């Protein structure tokens, strides 16, 4: 190995330096194997053509069948039973199970400026199927990102648009060509040439999104959404641009109750004092009794709060306990500056009176309500069993279908039914649990261990007791 540089010839010395750089380059011993193992878009072109032909034929047949049967489907089945078996949402369809997109999903149209408006580098704020916090860094670094470019690299020529996404430091780049309206017209993928560490859950979820997405949409507020047909899969904000405000939709105030982790402390536009709006606060628990507790590594905050149905919020000045803190900035927090909260899915944003984001939070991992429960006042009894795998079962009557559910520590609850064709004799849903589960937006637990199911306005729909041994 060269150690001493060549003599007075600087150019030769530079060549030696570059050679040393080449020696220091990362080595990927199994690159060839990895490339051979990776799917080639060309390899699948004949298959894709066949699949497309079959899809066209099936679509045509489906349209004809729909036309022929539409008269029969005009009204509900008088028996109340499920007569058909719609395609069930699989438990892995996490867009519905793990909280929805934080920004409003607007109806897509045939806007021919969509692809042009999507040009740039985008960082995700929400990815279907991923339960943990998504870093809201405005620099893509080596995390997941999406990039849309003019295909020929020149806006002036605008020969088309190309979308590419990379889910982390390890996986392949995936993408394809976009039409002017943002529709994905062809897919391509390129094998990973480098791999640093194993793929983590966010990357896996992002990979899945890139595999499934068929359409790009860009809202007027500057949020890019990837869709699979009409289902939103992921949302992004433009790298380097100020994030648009979050939706104020969702359920209030019940939905804010629960334990939240702080994962975004935006500093844009804030002075130094304001730049630590929550002073390093890491967790915040909003209790159903109107009390809050916050904590950082060494500081504990507590106080009271109120959140109105319109999102207006008042937090008392926190009582601070930081006895175990070493010297340095204290997490004094600015919760008293919170004037409004916005809640959507499993996200919560805190704003000051000027509309500036003080913090963005995400609910922590779901609490367990796994086991069997029933409504004691009703007979015949219907047993509700919450599975640890996200499945929900109703037993005790017929025709009650299979369910999947999601529950967050904040109490936010949602459930989807997947009806199956059954031959039933007897009343359907005698305890009214189908309606209850469909309307439930919040689940809380009383001190006696009862499970209280409420709708978005806080109205109690049902109280369940745990079955012994359930």
């Amino acid at each position: 190995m060269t150690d001493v540089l060549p003599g007075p010839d600087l150019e030769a010395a530079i060549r030696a330096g570059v050679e040393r750089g080449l020696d220091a380059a990362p080595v990927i011993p199994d690159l060839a194997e990895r490339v051979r193992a990776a799917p080639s878009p060309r390899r699948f072109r004949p298959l894709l053509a066949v699949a497309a032909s079959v899809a066209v034929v099936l679509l045509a047949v489906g349209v004809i069948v729909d036309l022929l049967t539409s008269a029969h489907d005009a009204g509900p089945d008088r028996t109340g039973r499920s007569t058909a078996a719609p395609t069930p949402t699989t438990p892995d369809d996490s867009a519905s199970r793990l909280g929805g997109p934080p920004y409003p999903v607007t109806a897509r149209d045939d806007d021919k400026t969509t692809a042009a408006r999507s040009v740039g580098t985008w960082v995700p704020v929400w990815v279907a199927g991923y339960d943990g916090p998504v870093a809201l860094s405005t620099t893509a670094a080596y995390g997941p990102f999406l990039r849309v470019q003019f295909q020929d690299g020149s806006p002036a020529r605008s020969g088309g648009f190309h979308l590419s996404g990379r889910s982390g430091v390890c996986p392949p780049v995936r993408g394809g060509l976009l039409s002017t309206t943002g529709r994905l017209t062809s897919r391509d993928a390129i094998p990973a040439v480098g791999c640093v560490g194993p793929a983590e859950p966010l990357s896996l979820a992002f990979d899945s999104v890139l595999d499934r997405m068929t359409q790009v949409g860009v809202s007027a507020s500057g949020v890019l959404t990837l869709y699979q047909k009409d289902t939103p899969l992921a949302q992004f904000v433009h790298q380097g641009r100020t994030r648009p405000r979050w939706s104020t939709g969702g359920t209030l105030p019940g939905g804010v109750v629960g334990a939240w982790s702080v994962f975004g402390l935006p500093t844009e536009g804030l002075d130094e004092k304001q730049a630590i709006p929550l002073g390093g606060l890491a967790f915040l628990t909003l209790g159903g009794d109107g009390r809050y507790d916050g904590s950082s590594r060494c500081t504990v905050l507590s106080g009271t709060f109120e959140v109105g149905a319109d999102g207006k919020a008042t937090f008392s000045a926190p009582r601070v306990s930081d006895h175990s803190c070493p010297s340095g900035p204290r997490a004094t927090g600015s919760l008293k500056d919170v004037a409004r909260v916005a809640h959507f899915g499993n996200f919560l944003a805190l704003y000051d009176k000027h509309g500036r984001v003080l913090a963005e939070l995400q609910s922590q991992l779901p609490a367990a309500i796994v086991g069997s429960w029933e409504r004691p006042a009703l007979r015949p009894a219907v047993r509700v069993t919450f599975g640890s795998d996200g499945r929900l079962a109703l037993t005790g009557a017929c025709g009650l279908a299979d369910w999947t559910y999601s529950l967050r520590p904040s109490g936010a609850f949602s459930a989807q039914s997947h009806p199956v064709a059954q031959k039933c004799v007897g009343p359907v849903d005698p305890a009214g649990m189908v309606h209850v589960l469909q309307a439930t937006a919040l689940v809380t637990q009383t001190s006696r261990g009862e499970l209280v199911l409420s709708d978005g306005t806080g109205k109690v729909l049902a109280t369940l007791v745990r079955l012994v041994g359930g």
Partner: protein
Amino acid sequence: VTFEEFVAARGQALLRFAFVLTADPHLAEDVLQTALLKALRHWRRVERSAQPEAYVRRIVVTTWADHWRRASSSEVAGDVPEGRTEDPADRIGTADEMWQALAALAPRQRAVLVLRYYLDLDDEQIARQLGISRVTVRTQRSRALATLRERWTPTADVTNGGSHD
């Protein structure tokens, strides 16, 4: 040659090249992936060319140029201390130290030197690949050489013309 065969055969060499351009292993992978993606989209043209590797290497360079051009206009610089004082320990006396010095150069300066002294391109070719003027090429090279010369300690051993082990 198929795309897969090409990447299997030359991917590592291209990664090394991307690394000396970027001086960052992760960025090198990113740049190379993007470049290979571009090459894949025009693979017929690439494989028909006389030198596919040189073709892809050019794409790597333009991709890297696009990257730092975009980065310089949109990204906020990190906490780089200004007015760095010269430390005698920073003198360049070995190939390792020269590489460290090259890695510390501004991206465009490093790119100009790598293209000149590694690929042996002339100013016209460098300007075309980086999308800058020949005057800029000369200016950047001049500044880069001045920076290196300031810290470089020539050794007396020139007997083998620079090829050492």
